């Protein structure tokens, strides 16, 4: 019996060894993801990944998605398989996916490990800079068997980024406070993708050197750093009220010169193709504040 077992393991190893892998890419956790054929049934565990798959033209291959996948509207009707806290592994298996795409910092190592233990190929994404995005398009394109159109999208993205970079990056540096949460005040440090967009537009994130990726900060620290622009992720509904809350701190240049702006959170915080739209907004806001910036 035991010999049979060993033989079986050996034989199956042989079997996989002999068939050449058709597709192989490295994901953001450094692992090789191998597929025998282009993925036709994909499970997407995060809204930004769903958006990217639609953007690459394979939205119709998504058989399962997380609860927050809401863009484009067609994504809303996909079977929900996970939320922030847990994934329904049985449901995911029953959908018979040939590829799972997961978001490292959003889904967490536990869910990803379990899916791998269940024998599913998992492609893990963790985007920390804009320069990573074209490569992400290419690798996903390879996995779904559309390398050419994905490469075209990747080139297009890189082109639009370099247009912004050439236009803004060398202009007068502007100090910026990027507010992602109000109560308590929270921002991002230099490791975050948003900070990369700030640098692209010729801005300086005032909390670039803070230790946590998403630090909680006090108003005093913002006053001390004296930003020339304050940008918050939020909707236009709360704009007036958000501005009036900052008004009480007149010592801040951004407040004194009225450079307080909102960007829809989906554009900046989702790490999706719409990041470029967010970047365009941000570059314009920084540029609007440049006349008030004292040259150093």
């Amino acid at each position: 019996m035991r010999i049979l077992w060993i033989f079986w393991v050996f034989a199956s190893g042989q079997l996989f060894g002999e068939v050449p892998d058709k597709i192989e890419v490295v994901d953001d956790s450094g692992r090789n993801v191998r597929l025998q054929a282009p993925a036709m049934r994909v499970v997407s565990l995060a809204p930004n990944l769903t958006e990217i798959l639609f953007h690459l033209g394979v939205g119709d291959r998504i058989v399962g998605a997380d609860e927050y996948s809401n863009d484009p509207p067609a994504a809303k009707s996909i079977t929900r398989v996970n939320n922030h806290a847990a994934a329904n592994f049985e449901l995911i298996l029953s959908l018979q996916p040939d590829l799972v795409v997961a978001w490292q910092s959003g889904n967490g190592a536990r869910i990803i490990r379990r899916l791998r233990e269940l024998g599913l190929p998992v492609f893990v994404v963790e985007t920390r800079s804009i320069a990573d995005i074209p490569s992400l398009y290419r690798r996903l394109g390879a996995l779904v068997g559309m390398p050419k159109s994905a490469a075209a999208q990747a080139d297009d993205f890189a082109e639009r980024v370099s247009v912004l970079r050439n236009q803004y990056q060398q202009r007068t540096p502007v100090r910026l406070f990027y507010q992602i949460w109000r109560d308590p005040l929270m921002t991002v440090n230099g490791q975050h993708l948003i900070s990369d967009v700030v640098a692209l537009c010729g801005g300086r994130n005032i909390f670039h050197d803070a230790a946590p990726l998403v630090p909680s900060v006090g108003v005093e620290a913002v006053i001390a750093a004296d930003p020339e622009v304050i940008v918050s992720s939020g909707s236009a509904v709360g704009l007036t009220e958000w501005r009036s809350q900052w008004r009480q701190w007149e010592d801040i240049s951004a407040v004194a010169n009225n450079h307080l702006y909102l960007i829809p959170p989906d554009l900046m915080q989702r790490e999706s193709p719409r990041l470029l739209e967010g970047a365009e907004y941000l570059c314009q806001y920084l540029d609007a504040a440049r006349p008030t910036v004292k040259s150093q």
Partner: protein
Amino acid sequence: MRYLAPSVCLLGLSLALLLGVCISLKSGVVDVSYADIWRALTSSGHDSHVTRLQTIVFDIRLPRTLLALSVGVILALSGAIMQGLFRNPLADPSLIGVSSGASVGASVAIVLTGGAIQMSGSLGLSLVMTGAFLGGLSATAIVYRLATSEFGTSVTTMLLAGIAITAIAGAINGLLAYFASDSLLRQMSVWQMGNLSTANWYRLIPVVGVMVLLVGLAPRFSRALNALLLGESEARHLGIAVQRVKQQLILITALAIGIAVSVSGLIGFVGLVVPHFVRLLIGPDHRWLLPASALGGGLLLVVADTLARTAASPAELPIGVLTALVGAPWFIVLLIQQRRSV
């Protein structure tokens, strides 16, 4: 172990608290000297340097320090009262379910109103406060009902019921978080982490008010609490209206804890450890224990908050982590000393 003279302890704690408040006002991202604080306090000129100082000292640091102080006083004093009331060293607002009831009340308020905490000004906060107070009060009332019979209140049943309530409250919080939308979820989890950074004069008023009420009323109960140390029937024979004292104390502490929790989130450890610490220093007489606990709680939270603001500057650390880090080692040292001297 010999006890410290209570008056020496009270004096020492008062001085330490005063010093703590001064250091807290001086420390922060912006360099401010004591001379600067004095100038900010006294001068009324339109010098831009002075107005900037005044902004930082008055509008940012002072309300925050006072909030830390008040929340610390409320947590520690409520802890001391409950430990006396239940004649159990483990009794603590979080143990008999007041804190967790309050947190469920606040979560429900956040979810029902679709995000009260982010709402403008007074309305949102007062809704969350009301939710927290009602949650804390009803948790306490349920525990109290379960434990009270015609023969009086059973401390054991009350503590066990408190554990059950805490478990149910945890489950409700978990369920609410599980089904909440993306933005509500973030509001709830950020709020539950506990923080004092959003202190402003406006939020401070109800907390200071309820702190003053608690501090003002507590001394009236110190004799009753001392009598209760002997046992309930003994206290009754000494002429204490035991049942009424219990009801009043439960109502006041639920109110104070509810308000404190709704502004600062859950900050553990203070209510349990500070009264113990004080008892080890000066003994169990509530006439001294209550004021000393209040001072000690205020001191612990002011120190912890100063560290939270400065240790990882410009980022801030969660205050709950620091109350445990600052308070627990001292507590362990005291326990070891006590073992040696027995």
